[in-house]
């Protein structure tokens, strides 16, 4: 098993004719992902890497039976793309786009409250179930199938973590970048619940960073409800308050969002927290044995 996406996933790429859309369609196809359709308004009838392009998500869904969307459209149009995909009933919507106005995300979040779609991102690398399918922009070849799940607010930091896991022989069930924005579609807890139910997943690596209280909430949830081993890392232990550290969501403000508070909350929940990123892989081997 795995969560969110697997070998049955059929992907529509929104913004497929753009530079990034094209590049990553190629990458996903070469990983083995079933990219079944693309959408770019006005480009219906064309193909990209052999994938048929449609004018609307609705048409793509009707004609190609896609169930997961991967969005590469620019920030001004991204909220429209997400809501479009959710209206059509995509199971999972992966939004790669960085830089969406926060009030657009307020709308998106409000809209999704009444729909079934799971939004991953925005401002995220996507989701991969190694050996099955990859919906996103992560380098596929560093992953290998296995028992460890990864949930992260970051992109390249996740690749670093996955690379170390693979390096120490720990393959992955599903790796999810939930996104670096202050408003994102899913929380750590949403996925922990899924991994709790996923028999293939034997443990979880949780990659947090400064900003918000999602890690504190996850710690509380794990303490109360989650019974598989968890290893955590929090980026930004040296970040100054009041500054956005690259990610729109990575900011310590109003006395909230400090790495030390998150680390303490996780440790209080008996979760091993790696402080030196370079040692994550080795620590994971020990933690996942439990």
């Amino acid at each position, binding site marked *: 098993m795995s969560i969110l996406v697997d070998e049955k996933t059929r992907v529509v790429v929104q913004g497929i004719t753009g530079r*990034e859309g094209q*590049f990553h369609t190629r990458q996903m196809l070469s990983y083995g992902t079933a990219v079944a359709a693309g959408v770019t308004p006005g480009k219906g009838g064309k193909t990209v890497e052999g994938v048929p392009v449609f004018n609307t998500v609705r048409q793509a869904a009707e004609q190609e039976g896609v169930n997961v969307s991967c969005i590469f459209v620019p*920030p*001004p149009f991204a909220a429209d793309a997400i809501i479009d995909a959710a209206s059509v009933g995509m199971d999972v919507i992966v939004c790669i786009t960085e830089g*969406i*106005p*926060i*009030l*657009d*995300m*307020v*709308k998106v*979040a*409000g809209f999704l409250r009444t729909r079934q779609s799971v939004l991953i991102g925005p401002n995220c*690398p996507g989701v991969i179930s190694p050996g099955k399918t990859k919906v996103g*922009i*992560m*380098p596929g070849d*560093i992953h290998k199938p296995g028992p460890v799940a990864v949930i*992260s*607010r*970051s*992109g*390249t*930091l*996740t*690749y*670093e973590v996955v*690379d170390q896991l693979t390096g120490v022989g720990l393959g992955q069930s599903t790796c999810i970048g939930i996104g*670096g924005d*202050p*408003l994102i579609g899913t929380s750590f807890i949403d996925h922990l619940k899924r991994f709790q139910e996923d028999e293939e997943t034997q443990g979880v690596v949780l*990659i947090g*960073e*400064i900003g*918000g*209280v*999602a890690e504190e909430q996850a710690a509380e949830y794990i303490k109360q409800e989650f019974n598989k081993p968890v290893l955590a*890392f929090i*980026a*930004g*232990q*040296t*970040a*100054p308050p*009041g*500054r956005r*550290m*690259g*990610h*729109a*969501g*990575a900011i310590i403000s*109003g*006395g909230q969002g400090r*790495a030390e508070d998150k680390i303490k909350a996780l440790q209080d929940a008996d979760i091993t927290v790696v*402080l*030196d*990123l*370079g040692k994550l892989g080795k620590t994971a081997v020990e933690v996942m044995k439990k």
Partner: protein
Amino acid sequence: MKLHEYQAKDIFMKSGIPIPNGQLVTSADQANKVTQIINGPPWVVKAQIHAGGRGKAGGVKVVHYPYEVVTATEAMLEKPLRTAQTGPEGVVVNQILIEERVEVDSEFYLSMVVDRDTACPTMLFSQAGGTEIETQAARSSGVIQKEHIDPVSGWMPHYARNLLYTLDPPPPPGAMPGLMSVMAKLYKVFMTLDCSLVEINPLVFTKDRKVYALDGKITLDENALFRQKELLALEDTREKDPLELMAEKYHLNYIRLDGNIGAMVNGAGLAMATMDVIKLAGAQPANFLDVGGGANEDMITKGIEIILKDERVRAILINIFGGILRCDVLARGVLAAAEKTQMDLPLIVRLEGTNVEEGRKILKDSGLKFLVASDLSEAAQLVSQQVKG
């Protein structure tokens, strides 16, 4: 993007939120003239800088004679003002706001942000208006009341009533319409201008039974500036670090820190983690620099140039995990920067991911002096040794 108090108040005024009469000046001469058009004495002379904490730092003066308006202006203008939020070097004051003073009966705190947990625009209100709301909030939760504005309903009067009727005693009946109106308009400003913060602290009810925004703070969502073009003109970059400004121009995320290790990383999370590892290894990062997931050769070159412009930097650590940004692109960018500048600082490079072999080869073949680290911990150890030795 932060606005100045006078800019925020100008927006308030246009939106129907009452503000005291005032005038911006940039010279003592202008200040002198202003005493003839703004009601007084007394007058309030306020330094316009982006940082808060001005009151305690001497950036706000109440004066009673016209000549004092001038001397207070002179005392602040073109001098650095150090507040709890500026850092030790302070910020140079370029503009002064001179206002009439209103007689305050009661003070409130009012602001709007987007709440991360509920994904709702959220209004914050407190009876404890004044200068120290943040510490007060930290000390006793419950002092600040919150109202989440549902995105379907938009603003509705009951949100204001829920906030205002938490006051004990409730606000005087004469204050209610004015306070409710300010709340409705604050919401509108927040939504229509794509703000990430709008704050009125203090919002006051005066002895002559009027409501005024005595101070104003607006931060705009930079991601939304593409549709708020008329607000771009309000940007005042004079308080920004020159290197941060330069980085912005090239779409790089750069933040100046206190140490001496220049660091360049792709991806914000990895960049923060790299700073953390540098510190764990006993050194201090001079900056946070995230070239982003999709950087090109030119952005890499600019990133290196920015690091080199910082004279405190004694060694450079480049940590790239190739994903979208391929390692060969990075290597070419580094070489281009090395050619343009005379890079003679110790350079530690740690590459991994897409096209890593090609990247390593390009650097190796270039004749550039650098140390290769096989993993992140080693990279941090190496760079730390450089600045210690």
